[in-house]
């Protein structure tokens, strides 16, 4: 594995990387999401993309604070992140978290942060279509892969096809869920829900969504969000299913096939 540089190191050496990889809090601290972070950096290495991370200069985008209603805290986070970002040069930001993606892309510009922002599935789909990445082992043929649309990638930003384009390179078809794309059911994590107990009801949202995934009779459920990954893997532990179902991020799947 190549050494992962910080943007500070590269810029100091006069190098402007193509990609600033925004790792996100989940991608940095959560065990499951870290695997995605690793897979994604592996793929960047394999595609010979020059990239860097902010390292310890990265801080929460403010998404959970904003969606919990704390605009002060959000703007404090946003403005100091923008100050950091504006002090470096890179050509685009790529992140594996749809919440970070949405916030930096849509909410930072008004506060002075204007960047080209891509979700990692968009960037991976680009790397595949431009030939920088080639699938060597489409090992998943025969396995039914489905995709769970993250709310903040799909409905919020209308990014439906790029993750599917990646899956199509790995499997002859996508075993679509009944509720997908615009109608995709939330995993239950967004809007700061993941940080609290849910209100009383008759079911947890992640269980409901996992049941829908189990009904689709898939072997693999691909996701594109660290929070969806957490919620659904927790769901899988609690929902009975006839066959084994595993959850992987798109980056993890692709990394296995290259």
């Amino acid at each position, binding site marked *: 594995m190549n050494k992962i540089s910080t943007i500070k190191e590269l810029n100091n050496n006069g190098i402007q990387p193509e990609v600033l990889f925004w790792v996100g809090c989940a991608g940095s601290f959560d065990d499951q999401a870290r695997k995605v972070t690793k897979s994604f950096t592996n793929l960047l290495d394999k595609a010979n993309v020059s990239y860097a991370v902010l390292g310890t200069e990265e801080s929460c985008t403010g998404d959970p604070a904003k969606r919990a209603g704390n605009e002060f805290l959000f703007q404090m986070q946003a403005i100091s992140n923008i100050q950091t970002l504006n002090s470096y040069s890179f050509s685009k930001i790529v992140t594996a978290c749809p919440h970070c993606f949405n916030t930096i892309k849509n909410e930072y510009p008004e506060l002075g942060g204007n960047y080209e922002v891509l979700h990692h599935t968009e960037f991976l789909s680009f790397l595949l279509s431009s030939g920088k990445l080639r699938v060597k082992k489409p090992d998943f043929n025969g396995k039914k892969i489905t995709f769970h649309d993250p709310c903040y990638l799909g409905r919020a930003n209308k990014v439906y096809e790029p993750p599917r384009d990646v899956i199509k390179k790995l499997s002859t078809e996508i075993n679509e869920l009944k509720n997908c794309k615009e109608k995709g059911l939330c995993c239950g994590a*967004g809007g700061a829900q993941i*940080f609290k107990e849910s209100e*009383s*009801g008759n079911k947890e949202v992640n269980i409901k*969504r996992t049941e829908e995934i189990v009904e689709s009779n898939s072997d693999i459920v691909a996701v594109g969000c660290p929070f969806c990954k957490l919620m659904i893997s927790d769901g899988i532990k609690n929902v009975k299913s006839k066959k084994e179902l595993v959850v992987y991020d798109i980056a993890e799947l692709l990394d296995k096939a290259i």
Partner: protein
Amino acid sequence: MISSVVFVSIFIFSISVFAINCKRIYRNISLGKKIPNIDKKQERIKKTLLIAFGQSKMFDRPVVGFLHLIVYVAFLLINIELLEIIIDGVSGKHRSLAPYLGSFYNFLIAFFEILALLVIISVILFWIRRNIIRIDRFIKNDLKGWPKLDANIILYIEIILMFLFLNMNATDQILQNENFNNYLEYGSFPVSSYMTFLYSDLSVEAVFYIERASWWLHIIGILFFLNYLYYSKHLHIILAFPNVYFSNLESKGKLSNMKSVLNEVKLMLNIDPEHNSTNSEIERLGAKDVFDLNQFQLLSAYTCTECGRCSSECPANITGKLLSPRSIMMKTRDRLEEVGNNINKNKQFLDDNKSLLGDYIKKEEIWACTTCNACVESCPIGIDPMSIILDIRRYMVMEESSAPNEINNMMTNIENNGAPWQFNNQDRINWINNN
């Protein structure tokens, strides 16, 4: 002559009441915060044509979409007939337009009759869906009582109006055949000709009275319906147009950045604020009551059709939580009406010690939202229930500090160590070295 006077009086009275109601709605909506300048007018007009006029979103569910389209198209087109009815009513003549339109008149009447029949069929199917099949979103708790009755009343009114229209034509034909008074042979009646048998045993005079009664009841029914709108979810037939026009064009994930907060944040971070914030009035952050919402949100409250598409896709609602985005809209309207009535009575708003949050909407509802945008996506007329939820959260967090403990912990973590969990920021790069 007398009939003309009676007609004109009833007509003017109904239109005046309608105008008063419209003014009230306008005044109540104006209680909200102004919306910033409306840009991209062309794009908005296109969207309105597509979604409100063209009903494109209704076809997410094709069968109801089609039935709804029939009722809607018929509603628009049969209004052409209304024009003649008004002219007849004022002039005291019968079928005033017929001599001018010739055979096209026959075509129009035949066309309207077929539409009327299709409307009756569609409305019966709607009634069955609501009352016999009992589709989930129509029998939920938030629709109990008046909303459920309202929905059925509308269906009954529509059936009655269409029946009266056909009945008018059925009796008219009999009178035409009998060469009764000024009933000249105009019109072509593909549907109502099957109804004439109903009256075959009656005298011509009796048929004449039935014809007149149908005519009067029909127009009175329409004028009643016009004034019923204000009390009903049926306001959407008018308000869906402005509501779609003013709805959000940007990506659904983008939440507004509150300007009032920005200045303070810039001060705290020692960045020059755009203007001196000392002279600006300190306004309430977020929303506690309808006054704190913006005018688009209040317009939406009046526009909501209570169809429940939003709630039927809401992850919180379908897993049995109290939150229902439909009921967020309905409660906003109820509170706004209460405030409006208070103003009608007292000339200005007298504090009633009530508010939208607390007396109408419970905290438990507000905290169950995952901000997933499913409600916004599914609304056929561009309503954004999530924005109201978020504004109330802002009030609870920034004015009341009443967020659930775990949420407060999450926010403290972000403040202290830049992540929603309690991790040392130096550990952010641990993933690089560990596996």
